[in-house]
Every structure is written in structure tokens, then in C-alpha cells.
């Protein structure tokens, strides 16, 4: 086909060294050639640009300003970043907590997602559908409010009253107000509701495996399920694993909702403070949007870095 040859021509041209104007002309030509493709991705690109790219760019710009929402932003250079790393002790707490979250909940929930998906995959279709809903429900419905009752500091709170009945404690513990327990509780709850999108994608991935490979493996002497898992199942699931890891680990940087609804924002002594909560504290409560944007930029950078790291780690499963 003509267009195929033209594309090849364009690719050849790309490899040559060209001046900027030549390159622009080339790009324009290639866009015209592929206008159908551009048309097809346009709906997505419009929204992606409007609601993701522009806001990211805007917050990068705003991070160099002092902006209180109501008045015009004032350019203040690197001051926000200097303040963040040198003056703001709460930022360091938030950073520490976020990293703790990311390191603990990210990988653990990733593994949990995979293990549960693997287990469920062996069930009959009806049971599989049922358990998928059961495991996915906490993510969907945000039912973690139940933990507020479980961990209520009231002596009639569930855990307090059980422990008091058993004689383990003799006065109620302020689970959600005592810095000793707060972060750990949030991590537990976070794990409980973290079987999210990646869990679903693993289930989908496991369903689409080629059964003939497993059969071939059995004939060739796979002795147990774990061998099958490592040598046959996992290599087939590179894409899903990659997707899951990116989703799970980068989203664990963005935790905050559970912490703020269980512990309040700000929590006592910032014990459950994460970067996202720090952003919302500055953005909503303190009207310092410029500074909040600067934190957001740092968080964004951290996520990008973690993504690169995941790429490296999972390269061996990936087809690309």
C-alpha cells in the first residue's frame, strides 16, 4: 500500500539529521498522512490534555508563585521548594509517612492482588464472580468507615470493648488519636481496601492464558503449581504485571483519603499525614495554592521515578 511505503519513507527521513523546520514539516506531513489515527485518539487526547496535562503544567508554573486562590499569583522563584525542604518540618513527616506507605502497602498489596487473583482463578465461574465482587467491594464502596467504629477510642468501641472484656487493657486506648498506633492502623486499613484495578487486571490476565501452554508444560514435566506459576503463567502475564505494578505502587504514593477520614486532617501530631494530605491542608485549609502545587510537583516526580524503577525491576517479565 502506498501509505505504508510513505511511512517507511518518513521513518527513513527521521534517521537523517534534519534542521528544525524540516523536521516540523515532516511531522506535519506525517500527521496529515495519519489523520484518521489522530482523529481516533482525539476524544481521549482532548480530555487528557484538558484534565491532566494542563493541570500538571499549571501546577508546575504555580509552584513558583505565591497564590491564595483569591488574588493574583506572585512569582517568588524557588522559594516554595526551599521552604519545603529547609523549613517545613511537617513536609518531612509527610514525606516519611508517604514513603512508609509506598514501601509497605505498595509491594504488599501488589503481591496480595496477585495471590488472591491466582487463588480465585481456580474456582468455578460462579464462585469466581462472587469472590471477585467480595474482594473488590471494599475498593468500590469505600466502606472503611467501619474501622472508625472498630477503632473508636470510646470504651464501647469494638476493639476497646473486646480487649477490656478479655482483660488485656483496663482503660480504652485512643487508637486513632495516639501517635503510637495511628499510622499502623491506617496501613492495615489501606491494605484491606487495596485490591483494586490491578486485582481485576490480574484476574483478566489469568483468564486469557493459553491453556495449551500449561498442557505442554505438564507433558514436559512441570511437577507442581508453583513451577507452573513461575515458568508458564507469569511469563505470559508481562503486560498485566507491569500495569498492575504501576497502578498499585504509584497509587500507594497518593494515599490520604483513608487517613483523613479515620484520623482527621491534620491528624494528631501529623502522625498519619501524607503528601496528599499535606497538599490538601495547604490548598484547602491554608489557601496556599502555590506551595501546595510545589508539593504536588515533588509528589509527581516521585511517582515518575517509582515508575521507572518498576520498569527496571519487571523488565524480565515484560515482552517489550
Amino acid at each position: 500500500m502506498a501509505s505504508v511505503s510513505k511511512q517507511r519513507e518518513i521513518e527513513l527521513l527521521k534517521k537523517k539529521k534534519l534542521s528544525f523546520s524540516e523536521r516540523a514539516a515532516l511531522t506535519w506531513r506525517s500527521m496529515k498522512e495519519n489523520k484518521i489515527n489522530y482523529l481516533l485518539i482525539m476524544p481521549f487526547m482532548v480530555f487528557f490534555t484538558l484534565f491532566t496535562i494542563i493541570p500538571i503544567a499549571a501546577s508546575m508554573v504555580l509552584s513558583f508563585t505565591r497564590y491564595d486562590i483569591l488574588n493574583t499569583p506572585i512569582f517568588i522563584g524557588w522559594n516554595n521548594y526551599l521552604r519545603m525542604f529547609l523549613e517545613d518540618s511537617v513536609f518531612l513527616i509527610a514525606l516519611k509517612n508517604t514513603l512508609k506507605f509506598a514501601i509497605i502497602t505498595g509491594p504488599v498489596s501488589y503481591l496480595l492482588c496477585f495471590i488472591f487473583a491466582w487463588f480465585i482463578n481456580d474456582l468455578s465461574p460462579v464462585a469466581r464472580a462472587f469472590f471477585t465482587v467480595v474482594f473488590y467491594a471494599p475498593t468500590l464502596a469505600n466502606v472503611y468507615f467501619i474501622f472508625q467504629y472498630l477503632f473508636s477510642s470510646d470504651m464501647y468501641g469494638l476493639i476497646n470493648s473486646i480487649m477490656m472484656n478479655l482483660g488485656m487493657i483496663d482503660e480504652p486506648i485512643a487508637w486513632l488519636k495516639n501517635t503510637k498506633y495511628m499510622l499502623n492502623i491506617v496501613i492495615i486499613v489501606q491494605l484491606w481496601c487495596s485490591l483494586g484495578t490491578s486485582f481485576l487486571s490480574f484476574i483478566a490476565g489469568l483468564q486469557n492464558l493459553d491453556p495449551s501452554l500449561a498442557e505442554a508444560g505438564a507433558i514436559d514435566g512441570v511437577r507442581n503449581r508453583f513451577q507452573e506459576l513461575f515458568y508458564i503463567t507469569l511469563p505470559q502475564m508481562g503486560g498485566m504485571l507491569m500495569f498492575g505494578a504501576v497502578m498499585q505502587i504509584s497509587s500507594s504514593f497518593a494515599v490520604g483519603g483513608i487517613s483523613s477520614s479515620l484520623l482527621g486532617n491534620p491528624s494528631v501530631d501529623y502522625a498519619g499525614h501524607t503528601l496528599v494530605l499535606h497538599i490538601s491542608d495547604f490548598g484547602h485549609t491554608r489557601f496556599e495554592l502555590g506551595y501546595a502545587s510545589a508539593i504536588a510537583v515533588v509528589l509527581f516526580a516521585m511517582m515518575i521515578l517509582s515508575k521507572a524503577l518498576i520498569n527496571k525491576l519487571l523488565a524480565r517479565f515484560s515482552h517489550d
Partner: protein
Amino acid sequence: MKDKSASSVLRSFLAVVMILIMAFSMTTFVFADEVVENDATAAGDTAAGAEKEETSTNNSYGPADTVIPEGSNNETQVSVVGFYRSGRYVDYYTEYQQYDVALPEIKVDATQIVSATAPNEIKASYEGRNQVVVTKGAGSLTYQINVSKTGMYAICLEYFPLLGDGNGKDYEIAVMVDGKYPHSDAKRFSLKRNWADEEDESAFDSVGNELYSKQVESAKWMTKDIRDPDGVFDDAVKFYLTEGVHTITISVNTGVLALDSIRFYNDGEEMSYADYIAMNDSKGAADAMEEFVLEAETYIDKSESLIQPAYDRSDPKVTPYSISKTRLNVLGGENWNTNGQTVNWQIEVPEDGYYTIGVRYRQSYVEDSTSFRRIYIDGEVPFEEANAVGFPFGSGYNYKVLGDVDENGKAYDFKFYLTKGQHDLSMEVVIGDMARVSREAEDIVYQLNYIYRKIIMVTGTTPDTYRDYELDKKIAGLMDMFKSVHEDMLLVEEEVIAINGNLGSASIINTLKLQLQDFIAKPYVIPDRLSTFKDNISTLSSWMLALRNQPVQFDKLVFAGSGIVPTRQVSNFFENVSHEVRAFISSFVDDYTSVGAESSTGRDLTIWVGTGRDQATVLKTLTTNYFTPETDISVNVGLVPLGILEKAIVAGRGPDIALHIGRATPMNLGFRNAVYDLTQFSDFEEVTKRFSKYALVPYTLSTNDDAGNPVKKVFALPETQDFKLMFYRSDIFAELGISAPNTWDELDDVLPYIQANNMTVGLDPNASGETFYTLILQSGHTPYREDGTATNFTEQYAIDAFERWTRYYLQYDLPTDYSWYSRFRNGEMPLVIQGYSSITYLQESAPELNGLWKVAPVPGILDKETGVINRTDQSSGMSGCMIIERTIKKAKNPEQKLQDAWTFMKWWTSADIAADYGNRVEMAIGSVARYSTANLQAFEKIKWSSDEAAVIKAQREWTRETPELVGGYYVSRNIINAFRNVVNNSANPREKLFYYNNEINDEIWRKRSEYHLSVPEEARK
């Protein structure tokens, strides 16, 4: 605390080991001697916690007779006096029941006053009556009567409500016989006023929606029996009067009225329906052949301004009918639900004869329950059965012909004999069949709570389930109390079954009954089941409450001559379908949101409300009916979550005025120049006089102007103001022999008595440290510097206050997290400090406690020099309204708009409108939502009783507002941090307060300098 819990874990572990050893040694008799020793240590260990309490109890902080001595051989003497209540009307009536027979009537002319404390004037003729007495203020009127026959007399007053006092509240009436209250309920009678719509004719707005009429008091001569305030008696309240001369004192404690006569009577048994028919038959009454309809919303007047016509377009047969426009076509509903509320209609009867009365009604409010009404025709209940006519539950509209069920369980319709011409018809809310049950259930709830309290005084709220407390021996009379309650419950169960045919929603009675049987048979299971026992009590109590709720909505009344078949009034399937389809189609065509009067000049205001749908609807009603007609400014009301307010302002789509905004918002937006500074209006000073002196403090910013002179800017007007009161259980305090504390020192004194009985006190630390502020204010200082540029937390008085505050949680171990309501109710927390709006909450939801709790101002600090107790209280919540300058500036004619907005603010915070709004919201949501208005005059019109109002006003005198600081969000969070550090980790209070105080001040100064506001010297370093 860490050590404590660790040691307790260790202890329980040891206990378990000991028990295991015990169990082991039981089976091996070889070591019998050692067993005894082990046994003793084990028992000692398991009960260690409890024993601690015992020792403290035996140390006897309290008067010996109130604390239960434990662990001794002497059998305890606990008074059971509080268990049986006495002196109430029900006890009084039971005592003199046999005198409740027909008696000769005594009529006293109201002018024959023997003595009076109420200022009054006798008028020869007044409003069509001769010789009446007109009161001019609160007080009593005393009369002398000569009783010819000993008996129980009902009292009937002929009175004329005067509009003079203007607050529109029901009269509070007290009756004394021979200078004494015959029973405790005699202090709290009430008499209703009379209300009507101002306009008789319907009015419509420009879109064609019908407008609500303004409610006005409509005075007329009224003849009313004195009835019990809770409606748990079917009959009028009766007073026992022996033969001879008596003085009767009638006190009118709120409002003024004119009184014509007082009638003492007892007509004996009322006429039964059979006799009524027989009597009329003998007069030659025949069936009527005509039918006529009375629209319920065309009433003449009513006892409550809150019972109003409403619109309902959910049913095809509601009249007047409109598929998409507002037509006021129904009456009542959830607002017409409390005992005593009456509506009066007038009917024109076309011919003499018997009529049946059918009502198209909706009672879809309370499931499985029947709402009752008492029927009056021409001011009289025609026969006994008309005292309580039921409207059973059903979805949507139902049609019911007034009637009853005969002995054989067969339903029959009442025939009312009406002569040709005009007649009055009234219906009054009564509790009906369940009145007696509700009364008895209230007693049961009270007694069970009493028992529960007695038990936790021994076991604590979390009993050791492995220990036998021998409750039956430790609490004198416990088994007798259980048996007595159990018997009462059997009776109630029987009655409920007799009325309803089954227990239905009252199944909790059965559950509790079985539990009590268990408790009686095996007292040792009580500690183990204490928490379910508690839950069962509260379930029973909410069931009892539900019995008193009697809502019903009327569409119309159909009077059909008993000789004809009445027209069908219930819609059929096809009518319903056609209605739904048309309603669906018209929902695309009609704009339901554009309610409202339009301005002829095109001036308009956009107003946002952030609270709730009901509030927004009420506001809309008020503006379309009053504001727009008066000022020719139309108003768009938007129900918007106010969290988006700032963003909307930036986007240029903000409102002109925002209402019900939180306390801190005006300041936050104000120093960022988004809100208009109200001091610029010339009549601002005038307007501020509506509020208490300190009410504007949170909205005031002190700074220097460009020339360096100090200025004050005010960004909002207050709408509500809430502050704390001390709630305490007077019954428990009496039982413990202690009195309510007036000062914190007194609180410290009584705390040990309370805690020795396993109860505690509720002092909520989570609400951003209000107690801390209160303590600072009471020491005569302020938490912040006068100009709001820094805190005063490093001063000695603040440190003292902080130490005192944290000490309550460290030394006295007060809970930091609790549900005050349930613990106050069951007595675990006989003293709590709560916002004053909690008064209605308790009244509504815990009627079994009526008269058992009191409110008082918060504890204070005694000034030793003057002897005055400083009871200053930090105001706990406030909402306000403000003008959004940013939006106004963008308007076509900003000057005009600004003036319009100010007009609205003045109108909105004015006494009449604030009170009207408050009462309407209360009508829509219930008295729990009583409006804590900031307008001092409007407060008088909100339905507080005079006692409650007195306490609230006393506390308000002491209430101070603390300014909202620039950067104020940093204060509360750091106080909480300091508090938690001290309470959780036993950190040094002074050190922590200093540390967090630095954080606070740094933030305040940073923020202030950012906006070029004045900062103190030390901040510039």
C-alpha cells in the same frame, strides 16, 4: 499509659496461668494443700482491678449512705425510694380515682380575684364579653371556691390570647390548690394560642405557583380544659377537692391573656356511641341524602402556626390538582403530630340528618402505627368513641370513614347528626389507644435505667465476666425490682396485644421480658449480659417515643349523608399511570427551580445556602412571600456545598451573599479581600445592636490602615450562636447526696463521689480545646492578644488552665471519646457539658428523663475578692452571613447591588424573620433542629420554655467570643497536639504548650506579614 496497659496485659496473663494451675490442681488431689494457696492468689489477681475500686469505695469519699459498701458481711441498705416515683399526676390520680364521678359544676367569674401576683386589670367589657380580667405580665391569680361535694374536678378555662407579648409561644400554666401543687405535673401545663392564615384567598406568583400565606395570631375566646402536657391521659386533668372552701391559684408564666371564667366540673361517664344514636333517633333524626366536601387546607384557624397547608402532586386525586405547579392542597403531615395540636374547620350543612365523615388522608410516616385524632363538633366531643379515631398506616393516600370496631371485631362507621346550617369541626392530636401503654412503658424505661445504674455502681460499665458480683445480695431489693418491672411488662404486653392483635413493632417487650426472667432465675448472668441489657432499654425507649408521634396529612373531608353511597376517593390503577406519565412529561417542560416572585425592576440577588434542603426551602418561602414583595428585589436561592465557595468566587460565578457559613470562613476570605467590610455601611452600628455584645468578635479583623492607624473591619453578621451549658442528672445527684458544681473546684470535689460509683463526667476534649479557652477566660484573661496578633499561651494563667484541663484526663481519667447522649441517658455520665441546643435533643429523645435532669451555667472560677463566680464560656459554634465583594463588583450596577445585598442582610438578621425562619425550620425538621438564633429579640420568639430561656440567657451574659485569628487553623490543631501529647504520652504540659505555641505564633506572623497586616515587635526579628 504504656506501662499501665503493659502491666495489665501481664496481669491478665498471670491470671490465666493461675487459673490453668487451678484447673490442673483440681484434678490432682495430691497437692491439695497448695491448691488452697494458689486458689487464693488467683482469685486475688483476677479481681485485682475491681478490688482497687472497692478499696477506694470503702475509703468512702462520699456520705456513707450513698456509696455501696462492698465486700463486707453486713447486708447493704440501698434505698429503693428512687425506683418508685411518686408525686406525679398518675400517682395522684390513682390515689383519688374513686372520686372521679359526675359532680355538680362550679363556675367562677375570673374577676373574683382573691389575691394576685400578676399585674392585671378588670375590664367591664372586652372583646364581646363582660367582666373579664386582663393580665399584664407573668404571675398568678388566686380564686376562692366553695365545693359542695368532694370529688375530682376538671378545670376548664375560658380565655382570650392577647397578642401584646408577641412571642407566640404556648402559655405555661401552673395550678395550685390551697397554695400547694397537688402533683409535680401541675407545674407544667400549657394552653394553646390560636393561629390563622393572614390571607383567606390564595395568592399566586408570576409562574402560577400558589404562595404560602403569612401566619398570624388570631385571637378569639377559647374554652379549653387543662390537660396533661404529654397527652398520656385521655381525659382532662382532674383535681381532688374536698367539700368546703378552697383557694385555687392559676399562674400564667409566659405571655398575657384575658380570662373570662374558670369552670370546675366533672360530667362523669361520657355518652357512648350507641346512646348518642339512640338519643338522636328518639328526636326523630333520619339519614341525610346530600354529600358535600371540605378541603382540609381551607381551615379557619389552628393551635399552631406550624401546621400549614402544603402541596402534594404525587397523587392524581388530590384536590386542587396540578401536575406541575404548586397548589396548596393538603394539610398537616409530619408537623401535625404532637399531642394537643388542633385544627378547626367550619362546615355548611345542607340539610338535617345523619352524615358519615370520610377523610382522604396519608399516614405513610410511621410504619405499622396508627395516628389518632379527637373529633369535636361545635366544641364538644359528641360521644366517647370520638375521643380517639385512628388513621392507620398505608402508603400514599387512603380513604377512611371515621368509625370504630365493635366488641366482635367488626368495623362500623360513625354517623354524626348535623342540623342544617353552620357547624364547627375540630380535630386534635391525641395518643389514643396507646396513651396508657406509652405511660406505662415510660415507667418501665425509667425503672430499668434505675436498675442499670444500680448495677454499674457495683460492677462498673465493663464488668469482669469471670467474677460473680453477687448482685442480688449487694443491691438490696434488686430481685424485687426485677420482679416488679417484669410484672409491669407482662401487663403492657397484654395491653399491646389487646389493641393491635400482636406485638408487632413492640417485640422488644418480649425480648426484655425474657431477659428479665433470666436475670431473676440466674442473677450471676447479669454482668455478662449488661451491655445487651442496656441496648434493650434504649430500644424500648425509642419504641415508647414512637408511640407519641401521631402524624397524618389530610387532603379533604367528605361529608356523605348516611343514606347515600359516597363518591370514590381513592385513585385506581389507570388514573395513577396517567398521572405518572403526565408528571414525567411535564418534568421536561416546567422549571421547578424557578419558584418565586420576580422583581419588576430586574434587581436580583443570588444567595447560597450550605446547610440543607429544608433550610433552603424555608429561605425560598420567606423571600418569595416577604422579601421580594417588600423590596422589589428578587432572590435566587442556591443549595451549594460551601466548600466550593472560594473557587466559585475566583471563577466569577460566586453568590452575592453566602449564608450559614462556618465561623472561620468570613475571616479567611475577609483578609484576602473577597468579602465586603460591613463597617462601611452607615447604619452598621445600628444593626449590631441586634446581637450580643461579643457576637461580632469572630468576624472582626484588627489591623492598621495605610496611614498606620488601628482599624477594625467586620466581614459578616452572625446568624446563630451556640454555647455550652452544664447538663446534670438531678436524680443521681440527689441519690449521691451531692449538689451541682458551680465552680471547677466544686467539680473536683464531687468527681470522686461520682467516680466511686463507677460513673464519670463528660467533658469533651475534641472540640478544639474549648474547655482550655473557657478556663483562661474565667481566670479573667484572654487566650489571644487584644489585636489578635499573637496568643497568650505562654502566660502563667494559660499554663495553669492547660494543666487543669489536661489533669481531668490524666488524674481523673475522664474519657476523651464518648457518646454523651446515651451515657447521660443511662446515667453513666450524670454530668456533661454540652451546647445549649442539646436541650431539645434530650427532651425529644429521652422523655423518660423529663424532670430528672437540669441545665445550669458551666462551672466557673470563684473570684475570692468579689465573691462572684466567673462563669465565662467560650462560644462553641457560630454561623454567619456575608457579602461577597468580588461577585458584587462584577455586577452591572455594583453600587445598587451592594445596597440590595445589605438590605437583604438586614432583613435576614432581623428579629421577625430570624424567628420565623427558626420556627419554620423547626417545623420542617423537628424541635431537635431548634434555631439558636444570634438575634436577641428573635430568641424570645423561639419556643423555649421560660425556665430554659432563663438559663440560656444567664449563660449568654457570660459568653465571650474569641477572635478568629489570621492563620487561626493552626491554633486548634496545635492545641489538640499539645493535649494529646500530654494525655497520651504523659509529656510535660508546660513544655508541650510552649513548643506548640511557638508553632502557632510563627504561622500567625507569617500569614499576617504576607498580607501586610500589623505584627508585634518580636515577630519582626
